[in-house]
């Protein structure tokens, strides 16, 4: 009995050891894990086309019932003096960067949730409030959320925002890819309003093909990198740019899915509950063996 326990214990330690030492980079494909559709959609953002009109910001606020103001206010280009981030008041923002090749033609970059193929928020959420839909979008469910903000710690793109000013029912705010509109057969609001076709909506695999062709056709215009094709296991939103993405304030991320290591540890510790149960048995065994020890000492 004791020997058996000891073996289990060693096994537990072995699992901890393997989790600790190894971590091979091989991961199950996102498709298998989330049952993603082959035809899942995405958006290709061509930052060399975007003119920074910020109509997308306005349209996004409109459809998400956020205070939007009039469309004319968005012509004000002074907002570009500061770099902005999507927050609880705006689910998408456009930032402007200097163009090293042509000072008169600045580069404008729209930022929003990337809708990862293997999202850290979905993996991290304590109550499963996030869903990765087979069609691509990552959405958040207000009915489950407890406001712990772990998704914000986990997100590699630092996207989810929290309504800190609300005392009751503060929401996590992030782009939902207009999931409801898509269900009705409509385009995402930002894609629909974009006057320059800087945002191309379509099947993700087609978009990657289009992006590759664009790079091939105009190698001087684009750097040979589709952001989101492989970053953190791939994202639904893809970007093309004329300069290095790190110059456009994108974080430098590897190709391993963000939740990979954590999930390996979790599934190692809880492999069919064997490690915890063996530890329980081991401790019980030791306690049983030692149980007689005290009797002799007590008066």
């Amino acid at each position, binding site marked *: 009995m004791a020997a058996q326990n000891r073996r289990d214990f060693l096994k537990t330690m072995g699992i901890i050891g393997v989790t600790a030492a190894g971590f091979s980079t091989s991961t199950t494909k996102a498709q298998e894990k989330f049952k993603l559709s082959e035809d899942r959609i995405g958006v290709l953002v061509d930052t060399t086309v975007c003119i920074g009109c910020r109509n997308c910001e306005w349209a996004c606020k409109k459809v998400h019932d956020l205070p939007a103001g009039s469309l004319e206010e968005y012509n004000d280009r002074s907002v570009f003096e500061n770099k902005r981030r999507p927050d609880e008041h705006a689910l998408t923002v456009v930032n402007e960067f200097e163009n090293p090749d042509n000072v008169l033609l600045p580069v404008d970059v729209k930022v929003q949730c990337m809708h990862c193929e293997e999202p850290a928020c979905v993996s*991290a959420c304590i109550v499963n409030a996030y869903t990765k839909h087979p069609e691509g979008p990552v959405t958040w469910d207000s009915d489950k959320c407890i406001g712990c903000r772990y998704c914000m710690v986990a997100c590699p793109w630092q996207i989810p925002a929290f309504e800190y000013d609300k005392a009751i029912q503060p929401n996590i705010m992030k782009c939902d890819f207009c999931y409801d509109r898509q269900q009705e057969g409509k385009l995402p609001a930002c894609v629909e309003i974009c006057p320059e076709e800087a945002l191309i909506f379509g099947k993700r695999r087609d978009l990657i093909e289009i992006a590759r062709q664009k790079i091939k056709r105009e190698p001087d215009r684009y750097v040979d990198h589709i952001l989101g094709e492989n970053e953190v296991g791939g994202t639904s939103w893809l970007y093309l740019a004329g300069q290095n993405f790190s110059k456009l304030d994108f974080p430098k991320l590897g190709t391993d899915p963000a939740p990979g290591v954590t999930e390996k540890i979790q599934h190692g510790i809880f492999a069919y509950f064997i490690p915890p149960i063996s530890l329980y048995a081991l401790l019980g065994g030791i306690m049983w063996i*030692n149980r007689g020890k005290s009797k002799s000492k007590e008066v």
Partner: protein
Amino acid sequence: MEYYMNPAPVKKVKFLTRGVMILILLVINAFVFLAIRFFGGLGAMTNLDNQHPWGIWIAIDVACGVALAAGGFTSAALGHIIHKEEYKVILRPALLTAMLGYTFVALGVFVDLGRYYFIWHPLIYWNGSSPLFEVGICVMTYVTVLYIEFIPIVTERFIGKVNLKGIFASLNKMIDSLLRFLDRGLAKTMFIFIIAGIVLSTLHQSSLGTLMVIAGPKMHPLWQTPILPLLFLLSAIAVGFPMIIFESLIAARSLGLKPEMKVLSGLGRMMGPMLGIYFAFKLGDMLIRGTFVYLTEVNTQSIMFVIEVVVGVIIPMRMFFSEKVLNSRLWLFVASALTVLGVFLNRINNFLVAYSPPYAFKSYFPSVGEISVTVGFIALLVLLYRVIVMNFPVISLPDKKKLPMVKYAIKGGEQ
């Protein structure tokens, strides 16, 4: 002459001292800020923002709270599983600390949650891949187990002494028989809870380390490692006994008792190797991943890392190996306090110092309100400890009714 040590309420002390008054003021101060938090939202009184979603309520109240309450499970392993009779006197104080410590953790989580009224949601909405889910479930279960483990202390205090006045007098008999029922039932089943408590502790102590792994490159490489859960577990095990020594010595001074030096130095003697194992893994991890290169840059992170490891691990480890330290009340206290500080710094470093979000416009420093709430909760904890040890049989006192001891004596009592 030596006497048997038996748990008994500490009676001979005045409750309301000047120190206690200050603690009460700190608690009131915390409640003022909490009112702002609950009526105005988290943004009204904290320095948290979209870049820094977690502050000291998670880093100190939760992460440090859980780590420093580890004395509960390490002492249970020593006293109940390995069955070292001579350490029996520390079991109840350690249990009380763990129980209060975890209550403090739960309070910290409660005020930090944006939707605190949904704190029970993890019970029905499960996410097995989330380490936070595991920590949440384990902590909830463990708090329950700790309260169950405490019930015998309550029954021991009240069996045969239930004496409600007035209209409640009729309930006396019923309550008494309920206590007797609990006492009898738990005497037979307590081992289940004791073992469960230890298993639950090892699980969530390590998963607390897994929490930050998913932050990936947002966390400084000096701390970001896949063996974080192992390091968290080892450091929690290492800080358990120093925390017991630390608070035993403080409690002894505050309550005017003679500390159980023989027991405490016995605990201290185990500390050198335990800290050694933790240090070996921390050092090995640093060498394998080659992160020592970051120590050549002088910045907040590298300085904090060096303080954490040198002051909080290496120095106390060396001290615990010294016989002189083990036998001196003062030096034992210093070594234990340094270990506690080391783990405290480690948790703060992991959750706050190491965390550098990519788009931070400003760095995070806790607001007056956040600090007030954390300090107030700690004050409340100390007050509750005082109330409970003065009314329940927790701390062992020399029992003069029993015969003086001949063998296996535990020194103590001012005779």
